[in-house]
């Protein structure tokens, strides 16, 4: 039961939370001033303290340091008492268990912080064993250099102990390095401690600075989480220390752990600026869904075009030119690094209109391999009468040729020098001569269904609606789906490129064969938000941002998940889902 900690928002495994002390604390944060240690049971018998809600009380504990044998952990494990004030239990990462407290300290942090693989194992093992809505606290290990990665992995609380010790030892810490103080002619900081003239700057000042730097870095990290952009930051900042880079790469290999915690939609930019961006959950998930869920419904030829810097692509000058040449006679699919391929129906769907990558025209082998693999799988799943590759030399052509060879296909190439030259555009136009145009209705239906496939699962678009059952109204990108009587069933949300249902639409969704995600609630009718304690059960594959059906004895509702399914069932605090429409039973 968590009474004094609440997760407010999530960005992957990182989260913004609130320690609900008498003066609330927003996490991730320094715990130093908010913790009272009731002491170790190794050295003395201890009383469970009175406690109060002004601090987190570390209950009497037996810490198992790194290297403690399993038998010792087993036989000395402490049974933590139940308390009615904010409390912390001390556990080893591989012996973590629900102790009913609001937060948990991992006693072996000294052993795994600094070692990427061990760090990944420890954090994942602990997080999987502890209730989702409790805070994870690592004591004595945080610095301004490593704290962003600690938080990225799922840590909520740290303290300034190590930063201060390092200062007293003459190490000057920033978010990009650990310097020997004696080597610094000039202090690379302007915090209050660093206002001291260099020659008077002591190790005590250095300790003060290190704590300031850690505090500042935590503020940056909090801002990044709120913006949904911590990963972009990590890819750059973690570069300053090898183990940190290794740590987030190790986490990238733990797709399940990170995926469960990564929202399916965001309205913030996604910067794909490093070679690691390809391994982000958002990128992998998009590629996976495009190649396993999406299906092309157009009968026309395929035209592969290069992506544009401007998003959505259709608003770019180059794509306007392609559009004028194609004139609805072909299905347009953009090739891009690092997303892979983007069918025209999904150009608004997160992260297709949200990412921004660094374009130099040079493709790395990694990028080529990834895009080629996605294109190959795409073409294996979707059949076209013709494939026209309206792509420039450089990486694009190379990728197309690889895929042609692997699939034994033949593409038609229409670009001369550059895709937007008069000659290239002319080629594209001529190549499509005689091909039939698809209709506006076809285009709109296919868009709605493609988004449904992507959002809900393979075949969802067709399972939801027969063409004869619906009509589309309003203008792209704000398409609305209505039944034949004109009642609205769903709408396309232009910011994320996903569908949101009306009550009627949601009922139809539940009755259809399309996969649904369901949240079962208690005996009440939710208005506004469904709080986690009201959730009886939730599908494990629900992700933050998913469209969900919410149902209980008293109500049927549709809305958007604000946490993952496992979190909904485990949590005792926090908003589980936002309700869009509700009907009392």
């Amino acid at each position, binding site marked *: 039961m968590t009474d004094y900690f609440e997760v407010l928002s999530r960005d992957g495994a990182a989260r913004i939370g609130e320690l609900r002390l008498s003066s609330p604390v927003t996490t991730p944060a320094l715990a130093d001033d908010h913790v009272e240690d009731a002491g170790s049971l190794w*050295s003395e018998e201890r009383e469970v303290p009175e406690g109060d809600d002004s601090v987190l009380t570390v209950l009497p504990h037996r810490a198992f340091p790194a290297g403690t044998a399993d038998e010792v952990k087993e036989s*000395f494990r402490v049974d933590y008492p139940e308390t009615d004030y904010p409390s912390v239990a001390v556990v080893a990462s591989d012996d973590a268990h629900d102790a009913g407290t609001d937060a948990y300290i991992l006693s072996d942090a*000294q052993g795994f912080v600094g070692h990427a693989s061990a760090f990944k194992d420890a954090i994942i093992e602990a997080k999987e064993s502890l209730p989702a809505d409790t805070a994870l606290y690592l004591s004595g290990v945080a610095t301004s250099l490593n704290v962003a990665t600690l938080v990225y992995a799922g840590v909520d609380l740290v303290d300034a102990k190590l930063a201060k010790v390092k200062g007293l030892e003459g190490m000057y810490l920033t978010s990009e390095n650990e310097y020997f103080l004696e080597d610094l002619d000039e202090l690379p900081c302007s915090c209050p401690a660093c206002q001291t003239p260099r020659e008077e700057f002591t190790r005590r000042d250095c300790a003060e600075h290190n704590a300031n730097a850690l505090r500042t870095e935590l503020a940056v990290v909090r801002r990044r989480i709120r913006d949904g952009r911590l990963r972009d930051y990590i890819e750059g900042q973690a570069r300053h220390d090898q183990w940190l880079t290794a740590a987030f790469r190790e986490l990238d290999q733990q797709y399940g752990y990170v995926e469960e915690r990564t929202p399916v939609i965001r309205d913030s930019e996604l910067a794909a600026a490093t070679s690691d961006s390809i391994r982000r959950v958002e990128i992998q998930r998009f590629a996976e869904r495009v190649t396993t869920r999406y299906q092309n419904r157009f009968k026309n030829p395929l035209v592969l075009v290069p992506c544009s810097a401007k998003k959505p692509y259709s608003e770019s000058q180059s794509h306007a030119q392609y559009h004028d040449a194609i004139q609805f006679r072909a299905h347009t699919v953009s090739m891009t690094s690092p997303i892979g391929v983007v069918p025209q129906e999904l150009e608004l769907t997160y992260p297709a209109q949200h990412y921004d990558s660094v374009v130099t025209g040079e493709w790395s082998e990694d990028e080529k391999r990834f895009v080629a693999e996605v294109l190959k799988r795409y073409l294996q799943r979707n059949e076209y009468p013709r494939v026209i590759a309206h792509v420039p030399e450089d990486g694009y052509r190379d990728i197309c040729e690889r895929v042609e060879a692997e699939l034994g296909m033949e593409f038609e190439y229409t670009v001369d020098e550059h895709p937007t030259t008069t000659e290239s555009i002319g080629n594209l136009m001529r190549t499509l001569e005689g091909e039939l145009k698809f209709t506006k209705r076809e285009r709109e239906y296919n868009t709605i269904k493609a988004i449904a496939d992507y959002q809900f699962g393979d075949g969802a678009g067709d399972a939801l609606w027969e063409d004869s059952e619906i009509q589309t109204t309003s203008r792209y990108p704000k398409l609305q789906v209505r039944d034949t009587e004109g009642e609205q069933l769903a709408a396309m949300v232009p910011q994320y490129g996903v569908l949101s249902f009306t009550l009627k639409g949601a009922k139809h969704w539940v009755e259809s064969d399309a996969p649904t995600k369901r949240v079962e609630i208690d005996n009440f009718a939710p208005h506004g938000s469904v709080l986690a304690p009201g959730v009886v059960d939730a599908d494990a594959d629900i992700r933050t941002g998913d469209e969900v059906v919410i149902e209980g004895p008293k109500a049927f509702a549709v809305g958007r998940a604000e946490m993952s399914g496992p979190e909904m069932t485990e949590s005792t605090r926090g908003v589980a889902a936002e309700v869009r429409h509700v009907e009392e039973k």
Partner: protein
Amino acid sequence: MSKPSPEVYEQGRGMDAHNKVMRDIRAKKDKTYDPHEPTRVWLDEDNTPDGVYQSLTIILNTGGCRWARAGGCTMCGYVSESVEGGSVTHEQLMDQIQVCLDHEDENADEQSGLIKIYTSGSFLDEREVGAESRQAIAETFGDRDRIVVESLPDFVSEEKLEDFTSQGLKTDVAIGLETATDRVRKDCVNKYFAFEDFIAASEEADAAGAGIKAYLLMKPPFLSEPEAVEDMKRSVRRCAEYAHTVSMNPCNVQRYTMVDDLFFRGGYRPPWLWSVAEVLEDTADADAIVVSDPVGHGSERGPHNCGECDDLVQKAIKDFDLRQDPSVFEQVSCECEATWEFVMDEEASFSAPLTR
């Protein structure tokens, strides 16, 4: 009062666990020793109630500590320094004594007034050293002034000690009490006896006219630096009531021990030399000679400060051992004292070690 023994005391979940783990760790070592040679022998100077003596320290190879065979203490690697099979004959023991006498002949100008005999077990345990050998050894050193023999408290008896006192030797029993806190001794050190057993042993010794030298261990595993210092301050004062000399020694990281496993994984740091100095200075008023002999000082595996001041602080500790004057510690200082002070204020067992 109960008479504890390793067999009886190998009970309780914590001790079972510690013993099992220690047996597994020790099993990794496979080295055997010649039963005709002592484990070690060296000459030194020691402070005793009668002043400073030249000392001959002997570590007899007696087949080793029986407690260690059950698993034993979490920090002790000496167990492996015993002969295979376990038992050493009277002749072999006497050969070992001869090697020690030869060592003294070769390296010292005069006979040592003080003889100290350790066994990595209990010299007074007759399964290690039989009555015949004990009496012969007492006679061999009968012409010296003082003798110290090491034993667990259970084996201390008036009768055995009279073998030495009857030679006119001032006799001390060295007892590895480790800490006066039963909880720490049991859970952190994994030693099976209680403080009251130590008191009982001191009464036996007293009856024989012998004294007690208590050995304390600073910072067994699982304690933070401030907890370790606190435990030692308390222990020195409690011991001083029963022992005329307290030897308070910082833990070092010995191979094939639980401490070594923790150290290897980043979960243990030997104590600071500042901590040793702090305890000696703080307990200088205790009614006993309090000494410390930091082994491996200045190294990663031994008690250490920052690397700059280790030798200096070690020298101050050695000076204190001989003169018992705490003002010597006012003469040593280093920038790293601030770090140590911070560690003393801020380190908890769940954030330890804050620095290596």
